[in-house]
């Protein structure tokens, strides 16, 4: 519902939805501190419109990661308003390494399951 993709009908939606927290953690790990609007824009830019994180999915996930201690926040004045910046914590960095390893091994396993190499020898 919240993660729109051009592959919606194929069910790819669920795959992206499940990876949302990893995407956010990875992004913050690479870019340093960011605010909500900026995260949405960055995800849109790196995915080149392939899929899009909507605000209705993004903010609940940011709040969840904050509650889990993966992210930390700072609030600062920007122009005439306050802005909330998210940064990744030590626990968050560890989590992103674990998740990336997990994801890589999942992809490897799926590839070998779906494209088995037939040994003719």
């Amino acid at each position: 519902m919240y993660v729109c993709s051009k592959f919606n009908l194929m069910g790819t939606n669920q795959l992206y939805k499940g990876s949302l927290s990893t995407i956010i953690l990875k992004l913050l790990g690479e870019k340093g501190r960011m605010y909500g609007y900026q995260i949405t824009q960055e995800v849109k830019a790196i995915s080149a419109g392939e899929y899009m994180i909507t605000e209705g999915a993004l903010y609940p996930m940011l709040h969840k990661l904050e509650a889990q201690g993966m992210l930390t926040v700072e609030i600062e004045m920007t122009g005439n308003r306050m802005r909330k910046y998210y940064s990744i914590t030590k626990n968050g960095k560890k989590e992103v390494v674990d998740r990336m390893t997990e994801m890589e091994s999942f992809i490897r396993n799926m590839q070998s399951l779906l494209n088995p190499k037939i040994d003719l020898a």
Partner: protein
Amino acid sequence: MRNTQLTLEQIELIYDFCYNHDVLEYEIQTELVDHLATAVEKQMSEKPELAFKEALIDAFYLDFGIDGFKEIVKSKRQSFRKQYDQLFLQFLGSFFQLPRIVLTLALILTLYIALHYLDQRRIILIISASILVVFYLLFGMLDFLTNRFKIKLKNNEKSFLIVGYFNRLKSLVNSSGGVLYFVMIFFFKPFRSPQTAGIDLLGSTLIVLLFISYYALMFYMPKLVKQHFNDQFPQFVKS
């Protein structure tokens, strides 16, 4: 080029807009206001003919859709509570480190010896219950005098998540005090029979652990929550 930075009045209008869309707490409003303001500024710089109010409505429907802020508000309220519950558990985890573990075990052992071996159970009951009542009254007085579950705000017009959390904390303190009292009465029952070592050990452990939790809820958590609030919104705290 047109200056699209929103004025203070326009920012206040976005706060009102969020409030009118059921975002009542300032902590949640702040983030959504910044999001909408950034989106409005972007739209107004791309389409200079666009009026502020039109740009605001466009940004709202474009980014938040027909469901609006509903899910965001719900999730923030839940995660706010979870965050502090987790900090409470972390405190308990960090509390049980070497010197304190020994002290806790010594307390459990002393209480167990008193429960299991001393004959004067009635005296133990009276002394322990009195100590507890004194503590309970002292804690109650301390709360009344120091307002530890209340944050002094400069502006009472705004509503904060932290106020709701303090109410929850206060009711937890009251109920854990009551639970502690009944556990003590139950395990200190003078004529309870049979007097098994297992039940006495369980009673001693429960009483000591409940007392530590009570201490954490009463002293540690209010200080921590207030500190977080001061760090994030110092402009609202009355000095």
